[in-house]
């Protein structure tokens, strides 16, 4: 195996062009390193992104804020610009994993974090005790045993990013690069409803930065459900945003295979309360919780409603 440490994005893609065989991008490594330890089939090359300084910065533009994908979660949480302009994103970052992991884990990594399932996220040994699942290349699903290979999705592993709900509310976009193409894609269009492929990023692409337009919402909140106030992934995460026009948007993570986003225009409802009530019932309807963690599915349905209401009550 070979390691590479490019210093610019261009250099990075020169390397990928030259490499014969497989490679992996290494961002913060907090998920990649455990994967490398447990996987028997690891690639020939690792490309470290930590020296690419251009993607490790937070910068202000005329009408937006740009966050480099290699900015660490700790930097995001403590950055004065972020705390001034979109403090909810900093708050959400502070809720991720542990202080040590936030010092290493990156914004890009959290957005791309692999979906999780109690059955898949095991050592190969322990997974093997039940037979390999679809995500591990097998042909069964322990979580929903009736799943057939013709079903969509075959894998119901849940999305667990703590940053994504707030980014959805803020209408953020991802700047994505490959060797010869840079594209920009809205976070709202980025995710796929599938526990295996998860998003539209291609193997040869990297996320360069996240762009957050100014003043999408005047009020943004994020609330996370977990049994203890450290380490844990969200069992449910709900973000709400209210625009100056008092239009409402709601984003939900931790339950479905993809993060959910929906917006509601006040003009479609008789009043604000009716809109909130509708958003709550929609939220309950649209989440499809399965028995995946300490919280039963029915409880998560109740909490979607509760979280939306409790956050909006602070508006």
């Amino acid at each position, binding site marked *: 195996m070979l390691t590479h440490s490019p210093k610019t994005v261009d250099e990075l893609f020169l390397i990928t062009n030259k490499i014969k065989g497989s490679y992996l991008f290494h961002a913060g490594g907090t998920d990649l390193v455990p994967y490398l330890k447990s996987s*028997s089939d690891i690639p020939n090359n690792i490309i470290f992104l930590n020296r690419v300084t251009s993607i490790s910065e937070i910068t202000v533009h005329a009408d937006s804020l740009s966050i480099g994908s290699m900015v660490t979660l700790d930097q995001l949480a403590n950055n004065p610009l972020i705390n001034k302009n979109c403090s909810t994103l900093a708050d959400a970052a502070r809720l991720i994993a542990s202080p040590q992991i936030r010092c290493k884990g990156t914004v890009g990594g959290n957005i791309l974090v692999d979906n999780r399932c*109690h*059955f898949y996220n*095991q*050592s190969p*040994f*322990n997974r*093997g*005790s*039940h037979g390999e699942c679809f995500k591990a290349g097998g042909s069964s699903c*322990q979580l929903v045993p009736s799943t057939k290979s013709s079903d969509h999705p075959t894998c119901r592993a849940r999305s667990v990013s703590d940053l994504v709900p707030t980014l959805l509310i803020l209408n953020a976009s991802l700047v994505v690069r490959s060797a010869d193409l840079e594209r920009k894609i809205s976070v709202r269009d980025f995710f796929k409803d599938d526990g295996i492929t998860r998003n539209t990023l291609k193997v040869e692409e990297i996320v360069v930065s996240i762009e957050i337009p100014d003043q999408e919402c005047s009020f943004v909140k994020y609330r996370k459900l977990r*049994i*203890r*106030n*450290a*380490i*844990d*992934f969200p069992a449910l995460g709900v973000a709400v945003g209210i625009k100056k026009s008092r239009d409402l948007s709601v984003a939900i993570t931790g339950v479905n295979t993809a993060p959910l986003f929906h917006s509601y225009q006040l003009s479609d409802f008789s009043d604000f309360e009716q809109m909130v009530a509708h958003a709550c019932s929609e939220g309950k309807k649209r989440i499809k919780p399965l028995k995946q*963690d*300490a*919280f*039963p599915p*029915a*409880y998560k349905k*109740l*909490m979607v409603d*509760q979280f939306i209401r*409790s956050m909006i009550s602070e508006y």
Partner: protein
Amino acid sequence: MSDDSTTIGKSVPLIHSLDKVTGRAKFTDDLQLSSPLIVKIFRSVHPSANIKAIDIQKVEELAGVRAVLLGRDIPNTFGVLPISKDEPALAIDRVRYVGEGVVAIACESEEIATKALSLIKVDYEITTPCFSPEKALLATDTPIHPELKKGSNLHKQVLQNFGDIDRGFSEADEVVEEKFDFPSINHAFTEPHATQVAIDTRGEITVYSATQVPHYLHRAISDVLEIPMHKIRVVKPHLGGGFGGKSDPFPHEIIAAKLAMITGRNTKIVFSREEVFFCHHGRHPSKISMKIGVSREKGITALDGNMLIDGGAYGSFGVVTTYYNGVLLQGPIKVPNYRFECNRVYTNKPMCGAMRGHGGVNPRYASEVLIDMACDRLKIDPCEFRLNNFLQPNSLTTNEFRITSMGIEQNLKQAMTRSDWSNKYRKLPFGKGIGVACGFFISGSALPIHWNQMPQSTVRLTIDYDGGVSLYSGASDIGQGSDTMLAQVAAEVLGLPIDMIKVISADTRTCPIDYGSYSSRVTFMAGNASKNAAIRMRKILVHAACQLLEISEPNYQTPTKSDDFYRQGDQKPDFESSYLGANPDYRDGFKFRGELITAPNGKSVPYMDVVRKALDFTGALQTKGVYISPKMGGNFKGSGAGLSPAYSTTVFITEVTIEPQTGFIKVDKVTCAHDCGKALNPLSVEGQLEGSIHMGLGQALMEEVIHHKGAVQNPSFLDYKIPSPFEMPEVDLIYPDSDESEGPFGGKEVGEGALAPFIPSIANAIYDAVGVRVNNLPITPDKILTAIKEGGPRC
């Protein structure tokens, strides 16, 4: 007298702290033996299967593989209790749980070992597993342990019946009865199991292992591998937490020893965190039905319990657990009529064993919640009810446990005052609550698990020309601070600074036998042995001092009740006897103050002069002290279970806030009053209580080992939820000195007893806050919310 105390009763930092805080302390995995072979274990993916064939041909052909071990290579089974030696080091013919070892390999490197594991192929014939403890009670043609010829998966049944249970219930003003359900709990110590074996040119082995009981491991390796004990030395390096989970001898320890013997090479095995969960030996999941009769005048009139405990695939400490589920309910409230039936069953899951508060934790939840329910129905204050009905000092329980000191009444009164109980109970707004619960625990078992007449603990002391005191004890410091306690006790008797006591412990070659660190026995038993040894050493030094000062030998004083700060017994030490007795009065009129020893006539002589005088014609000074439990207990089958020379008690008054919209529980404040006799080292006492609170909090609110088709589904610190610092409540600790006349300087149990009653105190506070009871642990927000929504009294 108290002015004379040099270390007892003072907050003494643990003697290993400096090594630990600088990273110098070596744990088993940290030892660097000369090029050890890496040992790994191939484990079963099936909970129940017959092994038809094992193909190890490719493994044996792989370069760097030095030995491959199968079950049939180690035919002798073992178990910590002589009455249930039902476990093979590697599965023989059949596997009984997911994670059971089938093949072990010793390889030149970690990478080769990992590769080798992937080349092992086992052909299984899958058999029907038994996961449900209820089904395990039923007759079956295919029991998990056919060799026991039981026709079912029942492992152990205990029935006890004292007094007149029916009359007891008929005398009650209120009878309450509930069913409770408790999940499997893991010790979750931070240091994974680890063993290294060094082999010398004569083929003799030194086993370095993370074990709570070097002596039991010593015996097991000798028995299973059929090697004389003198060819085996067991040493415990620094150990990263045990909590009961490192008190059995384990397969990997025997395997590492066997592979060293086969290859003639040093061996090393360190578990992954996942393997720690497979190995388990944690708290038994249990289902408990309990019925309690309560009378306003007479207190508890009757208690009837039925416990079904799920032992997993093997015996471990299970027979003891089965007894402890019932017998430990005999205190701290007097129970005149009681009956219990406890059944331990085998199932196809990782085995359960001893864990902090062994066997007494889940039944305590049931009994303390039921008492709270009865008081609620009778409109009695549950603190006042308890105050009127505690066991009294120097009394017997119904099943003839000898109660010596009993400080709980004062402790509860103090806890009520400190927590402002009477202004809060049933007076707080909805969502806020306060609850009480009490507990009772042993200070070591009065009977050893291997029947013999040896003392329970022996300590040796030596002093040579340098004047330093070497203290040798088989007791295992697992982080609880037993080495410090032993040093404190000896330092106190010899009037020396604690750094002059050099503790050499948990090494079977150099240290006398001690039955190890479990059942809260070390302070009481090894502490007394240390005191005995030090008193004998003091006598030698006094004799030499008398020679130097040309004065006559002292007369030992007869103690009076008024000056018994040191909790002396009422006897002079009998130096002719092998055992000086619990806390003999050793006051000889001399004052030992570090560098100077002062005679009763006021003349002083330097300590070093005395030591060197004492060495004349004899050489190194050596003494031995022992601890032997007094004869006690009733004349009936099982009377020895739960029998202890002293019992600790604990009071918890706990305050909680429930968020009614989400059911989230915040334990705000805990007032904990523990009767540990004399607090020999307040810093340690507080540490043990705070640790028990944290562990109890986890079991109460979030911890649960989850199985899916027999496989542990959350074998990681991400998915097995241990409370973070944010969940810890404010803690107010109360531990006034009580008078435990037989404990070393008055000390008794503190490491385990506090865990159990904390959990029901939370449950009782939740009831006070929102009027619901949750009888199946952990008490999670969804269960609270469901119960509140249903408006019912329970979930």
